[in-house]
């Protein structure tokens, strides 16, 4: 365990010094995300000109939601995102070989290989947004609630990680998964960026349970704005553990099917 923490440290340092060499790239992902964050904000502020609530959510809750989304997204972009997104390419070209031959867990290596330190700044801007939403909505938040919120953020981060990894482990079997990642893109764009409260009936089942992108930013928001029922903690924990386990299983299973780009 200590070894893995040290490895994370070294890999992080690597990416940091790499970004020093290409200073433009250091900020690029953050800047892109920051603008998307602003656009999302502008879009919802514009929509709220015409309405008061979306399924019970007012504009302040929407601020908290957008901030929460930005925090989880930045955590992902800063850590595993770029490593995971390259997995299909590594499978296709066989450059995964070198990583498999190393005496560390391959899934860990793939996930921790491409930190993107610049993105982590999004956590700050996101947090500011959350605090603004909470204060202008007049929410009084206890310390326990904040701890719960952080715990949920970590869980949702793991859920996001698992979802992304599961889709990409399919490249072990199908090699080309472009169509799938395209669908994932549009699901992320909407299911992730719009509040889960918009989902009803069958779509609620789809986006909150089967492909639970809808949970990721919604659940922490509901918790901190006093809308999450205690029983939902159980469901959310269950879903997270299930998908985390599934991701692990899929990765192991995929490795068994790995053919390495034919010699």
């Amino acid at each position, binding site marked *: 365990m200590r*070894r893995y923490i*040290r*490895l994370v440290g*070294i*890999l992080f340092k*690597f990416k940091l*010094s*790499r970004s020093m*060499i*290409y200073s433009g790239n250091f900020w690029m992902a953050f800047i892109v995300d920051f603008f998307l964050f602003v656009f999302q904000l502008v879009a919802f502020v514009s929509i709220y000109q015409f309405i008061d609530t979306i399924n019970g959510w007012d504009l302040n809750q929407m601020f908290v939601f957008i901030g929460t989304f930005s925090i989880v997204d930045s955590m992902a972009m800063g850590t595993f995102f770029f490593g995971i997104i390259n997995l299909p390419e590594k499978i296709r070209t*066989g*450059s995964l*070989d*070198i990583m*498999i*031959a*190393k*005496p*560390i867990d*391959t899934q860990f290596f793939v996930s921790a290989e491409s930190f993107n330190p610049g993105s982590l700044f999004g956590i700050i801007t996101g947090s500011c947004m959350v605090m603004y939403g909470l204060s202008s909505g007049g929410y009084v938040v206890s310390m326990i609630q904040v701890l719960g919120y952080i715990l949920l953020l970590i869980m949702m981060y793991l859920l996001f990680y698992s979802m992304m990894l599961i889709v990409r482990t399919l490249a072990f079997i199908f090699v080309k998964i472009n169509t799938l990642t395209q669908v994932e893109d549009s699901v992320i764009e909407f299911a992730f960026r719009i509040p889960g409260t918009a989902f009803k009936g069958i779509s609620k089942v789809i986006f909150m349970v089967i492909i639970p992108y809808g949970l990721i930013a919604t659940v922490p928001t509901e918790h901190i704005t006093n809308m999450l029922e205690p029983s939902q903690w159980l469901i959310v924990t269950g879903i997270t553990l299930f998908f985390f386990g599934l991701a692990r299983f899929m990765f192991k299973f995929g*490795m*068994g099917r*790995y*053919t*390495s780009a*034919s*010699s």
Partner: protein
Amino acid sequence: MIRVNHLKRDYYFKEKEPGFKGSLRYLFKPKKVTKTAVKDFSFHIKKGEIVGLIGPNGAGKTTLIKMLTGIIPPSEGTIDIMGFVPSELKDDFRKKYAVIMGQKSQLWWDLPALDSFQLNKEIYQIPDAQYEKNLKELVDIFEVEAFLQKQVRQLSLGQRMKMEIIASLLHDPEVIFLDEPTIGLDGVAQKQIRKFLKKVNEERHTTIILTSHYMEDIKSLCERIIVINDGEKVYEGTYQDLVNKVSPYKIVEVVFEIAVEVLIELPVEYMEKNPYKIKMKVDKSKVNEVVGQLFNHYAIEDLAIEEEDITDVVEKIYRDI
């Protein structure tokens, strides 16, 4: 140390037939095609041996290396390396070997090689003292001190391959697998790498298994070679035996003191013939006789007897065996 028994590896492809109908069928009921890359392959390797794997492109050499290192599991058969089953990918197993693939780099492109070495130190949990000692030794041998702080992308191919080898040997592996380690390198760098591998083998009794296109690598390094063709083992033994087996000829080159016309009948095949010099292919059993005759009849300034050109031999191996 390495025992491989009845190894087999199949690859499955889905074949797509042309046309829209073919595409539809591909989606619902694809035609499966099996290609056997390695079949019924067995061999044993003792500690401290250097074994060469040779064969034409696509013969299955790389597939074999990938199975030995656990990167891909075999379809059938067993591999036992120092008591481990490679495909289980135990950390303890992976700490005991190193694999160097000429085409795939483990170095971080944008960072100095030294950074990649430090990463490996952590990955392989190499104690400080051992790391320092090995690093110094390896850097000295390859004379790459000056390039340690340079970004890998700025290194020449030869320098990069040396760094690649250093990165792989810091943890004192007991077995080294090399897949085309000298591909694309110039003569000097090739020689240096060969010399180094020999040294590592002698000093540390490291077992080395390598594949190469360059017969010079194989000839100068390997005590034993295994020839693979079309996934099957077609030969196992020493280099010399192989040459004897496939090439019953020697090349005899004679330079005359004065211009002559060779009129006597010789049991040879001429490759070059002019008044000052002849070059011919001679059956090994007849070399003495031919040379004797030439000395009897002509004034000879220089004479050379050589093995047939190795590249030719190799081509023959693939054709004949």
